[in-house]
């Protein structure tokens, strides 16, 4: 498919205050370069959908500017508010929102009808996009006679048939069953990359975010906490919440005793010390929390500076992986080991090592309240 040049999306200082409660979005800024897929990730109620709807023009922001391809489409301060239909964007809704009184073809051709496209060209575009999403045989079916996954693809086809400069997707896979979700998320990325569109994608599923996104923005309580490549989000989370939300669920508390460059020595109590990567700028004497991914702890190895002895408390065999609960000087940690063999027995003492690059130390601001 050929078409317009994908556009940049710029969001600066976006704020949305509903008539009740705290702001749903509170000062969110980010940019999506042309052709890139950015995923907004966060727990339920953090303001992802609201951000997306503000970009679409379905919700009116309280503050901040949104520009698409360099044109300001929303800026309360300047009194600019372009209606959705003039923003030239496509949107896939969480509920698909395919029109049940129309066939697949009628659904997909609808946007073209409102854009002065010639009949022959419209026909060609519809056929092309239906082939792209793999629904060519279903063109004349009423959409109510489709499965959930097929409806989702109709919704996608409808939103890309006119090659909008920007595509918005709101949890497009969340209503599908787990297996289909896995398959469609690969398809979805392939289709998006094939069309080369700029896309903003919302989800609360971290695995989905990693597969689909070129970059991921993690949100919480209306704030954007970190925006980076999946690799950055997973290997250098900017704060404890991001670490925890993306799966670093183990925590150790302690006090920083000395720092050397990017690393520091943390006193974990009982005279135990460990080395950790300092993500925040911390000074000696400060209380810290260390986040650890269960996959990064190695049982049975004894190398590097952070090597300890731990007792295996519990073992949960899950077929392709095994989860252990271990007791590391009085703290309970979770360890995940891949493979179909469960190698360690409950009750034994085993060496464990926590490489210092995966012990992320943050300033201790109390335990996370939600999540």
């Amino acid at each position: 498919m050929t078409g317009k040049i994908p556009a940049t999306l710029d969001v600066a200082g976006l704020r949305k205050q509903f008539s009740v409660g705290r702001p749903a979005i509170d000062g969110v800024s980010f940019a999506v370069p042309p052709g890139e897929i950015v995923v907004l990730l966060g727990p339920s109620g953090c303001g992802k959908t609201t951000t997306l709807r503000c970009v679409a023009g379905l919700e009116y922001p309280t503050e901040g500017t949104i520009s698409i391809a360099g044109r300001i489409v929303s800026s309360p301060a300047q009194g600019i508010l372009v209606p959705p239909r003039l923003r030239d964007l496509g949107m896939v809704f969480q509920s698909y929102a395919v029109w049940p009184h129309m066939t697949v073809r009628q659904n997909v051709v609808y946007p073209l009808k409102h854009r002065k496209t010639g009949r022959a060209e419209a026909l060609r575009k519809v056929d092309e996009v239906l082939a792209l999403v793999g629904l060519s045989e279903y063109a004349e079916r009423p959409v109510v006679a489709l499965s959930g996954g097929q409806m989702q693809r109709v919704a996608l086809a409808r939103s890309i048939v006119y090659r909008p400069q920007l595509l918005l997707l709101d949890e497009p896979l969340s209503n599908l069953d787990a297996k289909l979700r896995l398959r469609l998320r690969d398809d979805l990325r392939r289709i998006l990359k094939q069309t080369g569109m700029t896309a903003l994608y919302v989800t609360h599923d971290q695995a989905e975010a990693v597969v689909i996104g070129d970059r991921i923005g993690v949100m919480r309580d209306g704030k954007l906490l970190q925006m980076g490549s999946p690799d950055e989000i997973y290997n250098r989370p900017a704060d404890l919440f991001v670490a925890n939300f993306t799966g670093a669920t183990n925590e150790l508390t302690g006090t920083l005793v000395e720092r050397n460059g990017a690393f520091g020595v943390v006193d974990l109590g009982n005279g135990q010390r460990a080395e950790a990567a300092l993500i925040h700028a911390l000074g000696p004497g400060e209380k810290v929390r260390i986040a650890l991914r269960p996959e990064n702890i190695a049982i049975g190895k004894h190398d590097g500076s952070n090597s300890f002895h731990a007792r295996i408390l519990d073992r949960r065999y899950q077929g392709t992986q095994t989860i252990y609960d271990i007791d590391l000087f009085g703290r309970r940690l979770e360890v995940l080991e891949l493979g179909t063999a469960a190698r360690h027995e409950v009750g034994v003492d085993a060496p464990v090592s926590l490489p210092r690059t995966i012990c992320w130390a943050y300033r201790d601001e109390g335990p996370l309240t939600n999540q």
Partner: protein
Amino acid sequence: MRLNFLSVAWVALLLAILAFLVVYPVLMLLLGALTDTNPVVDGFGVFRLSVENFTTVLTNPNVGEALANTLIACGGGTVVAVVIGLAFSWIVVRTNTPCKRFLAAASILPLFAPPLVAGVAWVILGSPKTGLINTLFKWVNLDWRVDFYTLGGLVFVFGIYYAPYVYMFTASALRNMDPSLEEAAEVSGASAFATLFSVTFPLIMPAIISGTLLSFIVMLGIYGIPAVLGAPTNINVLTTYIFKLTNWSPPLYNTAAAVAIILMVVTGLLVYLQQKVLTGRSYTTVAGKAFRPRSVDLGPWRWPVLGLAVLYLCIVVVLPLLALIVAAFRKFMFIRDAASLVDLRQYSMVHFDSIFDNPLTLRSIYNAVEVGLITALTGGILAFAIGYTIYRTRAPGRRTIDLLSTLPVAIPGLVIGVAYLWAWIGLPGGLYGTIWILALAFIARFMPDTVKALSTSFLQIHRELEEAAWLCGKGMLGTIRTIMLPLASPGVIAAMTLLFVLSIRELGSSLFLYTSNTMVMSVLLLDYYEGGNIGKTAAFSLVQTVLLGVLIGFANWLSRGASQASVGRTG
């Protein structure tokens, strides 16, 4: 069921009552339409069967004209009702018009206005010579004149009073519709207008169609409005024509029965069609899902839109009420200019004095209340028994009971009146001429509404509560008495109050069944109107309106708003 004999006997009893209330009168009506015997003159039981009545009726140009008028008035009225109802539901559900709650609550008020009273009010407002609207036009030197004694007047009054039926259906369909369906259209590039016509309206089409059919059905059966607006210029619709037939001397009961049968068949077909549309697939309702309400920002337009909505409410509620008040308290209806409109010396209680000097007035109020009480108590108990049997037992034959008790949905009130007339007038020493024939006709007529109103309160009571009582050793009757009645009693009382209100308003069936001893309010009101004194008519209309207002307020308070929908099809 352990006591099988008892349950069979119970079902048989209910079926017998329903046969007596519904089946027998309808069969007699059919018989009447198929004979040329006059039940009053020839006595009961001498019948010569023929289809002659139908052939004469169908070839009679007067019937043809009445039918044409009916179709124009009801068809036109329905179009007006659909436009108003649809616009109103869109404004209330889908826009950010201010005071939406108030608009939503006020929009169903017209449903409570008795058709006869509404008709009288519009006579006062819109009669060609003395109408208040024309007086007003004259006063501001406008060269416009309105005449409501026309088919156009009927269309207008029908349309504004029955718009709430369309509104009720479409508003709930709009509320249940996933708003992202509309947002998707908007994002796709469609303007708000295009979205409305290509997505919103097609999606709620089942609701639009069934609201349309319902308002048409109700208009078909209305007597009061065409009776007062059509009388001066002799415009007949089917209902008024049927009544005329029975009022000629000698009364043409057979012809009336034949026309009534035609009206019933048409209504029945439309009701069937409406039920089909309602049970057919609806795109919009997703069980139990709550959608975030979406409202279109009208910007500065929201004030004119609010103005339009308020204007409608003024036209349909405030203006007629003011007209009634002016006419009721003014000594003479002739109003020379605006100054005389506010001249307090022109006002007095003389019309009230004169209607209450007439012994018939108090008698009719007393009768109406008595009929209302009998109807409410007997009908309420019967509906409870029927509802319980249908919804809470596995008794054999409960489907037949269900069917028979909903049958009156398809019978306009006027037709019930004619049917009861045929059923009892020829029987010497029978019910005819007593209060009871009115009460029985009302019970039959409002049975579907009462059972439906009660069924919601039955369905809210968990079956397990009853089963728990059975397990504790209570018998069936004991369970009903100790569990069902106390839990359902708010619903039962609300249903009875509703029945009371409905029977006090009822005119169509009373017309054929009253005698001078059993004159009821609504019939006397029509009498006053036909007597030609608009002041007394207005005064008595106000009395009825106030009485109904108090009762409806009470019912509403009892059921917290649940009774609104039940005024439903009765008009």
